[in-house]
């Protein structure tokens, strides 16, 4: 008999504790972000699609068209080409396209680059209805930023 009352009163008490917790939560700060209107900055180690890095002194991409990234890519989604301008000591890229539809974001291209010319971008709003949007012209992207 005592056990009956004890378990019931204890049970009622735990229910009251639960209700108090939910009540207190009503006045805490909301964690939801109004996403389309506001967005968070992406974390520093986020792996987006790759991007070329610009050399700040010359204003040109650091890439010297050694083709290491194209060879390292297991999906063959990187295509690049370059020329050696008159009087220059190294090649410069004339085109650098990434086929993002087959890229698996493995990062082998970034690892294989000996000249520190590639990085992961922080882009994550990449949804699109057109396939052409995923043929990314990275050279145009790096020049846009200047």
């Amino acid at each position: 008999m005592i056990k009956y009352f004890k378990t019931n009163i204890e049970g009622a008490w735990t229910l009251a504790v639960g209700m108090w917790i939910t009540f207190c939560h009503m006045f805490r700060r909301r964690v939801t972000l109004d996403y389309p209107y506001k967005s968070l900055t992406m974390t520093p180690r986020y792996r987006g699609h790759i991007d070329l890095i610009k050399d700040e002194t010359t204003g040109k991409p650091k890439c010297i068209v050694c083709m290491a990234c194209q060879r390292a890519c297991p999906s063959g989604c990187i295509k690049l080409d370059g020329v050696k301008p008159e009087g220059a000591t190294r090649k410069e890229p004339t085109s650098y396209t990434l086929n993002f539809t087959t890229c698996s974001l493995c990062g082998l291209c970034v690892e294989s680059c000996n000249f520190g010319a590639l990085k992961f971008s922080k882009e994550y709003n990449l949804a699109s209805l057109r396939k052409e949007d995923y043929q990314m012209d990275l050279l145009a992207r790096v020049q846009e930023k200047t």
Partner: protein
Amino acid sequence: MTHEMVMDGLRLVLYVAGLILFAATNAAYLSLAERKIPSWMQLRRGPTEVGPWGLLQPVADGLKLMSKQILIPQDTDKFLFILAPVMVVVPSILCLVTLPFSETIAARNYNLGLLMIFAFGAINMFALMLAGWASANKYSSIAAARVVAQNIAYEIPALLIVISLVMITHTFNLHSIVDQQSGGFWHWNLFNLKANPLMPLSFLIFFICLLAEANRAPFDMVEAESELVAGAFTEYSGMGFGLFFIAEYANIVVGCSVATILFLGGWHCPFGLLPGVHWFLIKLYSLCFAVIWVRWSFPRTQFYGLLNLSWKILIPLALFNLILTAVMLKVIPMP
């Protein structure tokens, strides 16, 4: 004579329109509260897009429900299938007829108002059972069986509590029950410890029974999504589903109003100031908030847990409460 008849007819139309409007508005905005309040409890923001702070969300929901086709599946009992949503709405609106919102606002002041509310409350269960049966769907049939077992189990303690209360008030008339509680919260039946020292406990039992009778979580066995898809409502679409929705919230409003009238002094102010319909609404919506609060604090019980709670805890306590009230009435003479 004719003038009186016209006025009476006009009064009838006004009250019918008013009560339907009241029930529909409550359903709409309680459903918004049902989305906003839990979202605050879960640190979310709830609907914000439709109108300022999402205030027009119920309008959008209503338009969506009305624009949907009403599908009647094969092998259903078509007559009962269509009848069930109507039968679930009409009694809950009829219950509103006898509720006194204030000293002067009440559609009809019956002497047996309390009895009428419980009588029509029982039809709600019957309609849900019909909906489950007529759907010819295994989930709906299980839900129909559950709703009967659940409502029988919870009507007993609720009525035992009401009987012990009526023994104290000596009347079924809701208006007189409220009038007996005038003049400050210490006159409310909730604190009427002189008549029965267990009054707060009986209010708690009544509130639990209210949750179970209105099929609200944690006792929403009728539409237990994780087990029964949508229970008795599985086959309903469009406004057929919408009517069940309106009825659910109308039942909550009726239940909370009855609790307000029986235990919390109806339209009387807790401090004896400015009695009026506003106090009734404040108490009513505080209880509605509590109903929503309970739903989003606790997980759904299992079916045997539900029946154990009623038969092993609530009914013995309610019976003890009844006997105690009777003894107290004999020992301490009422003024």
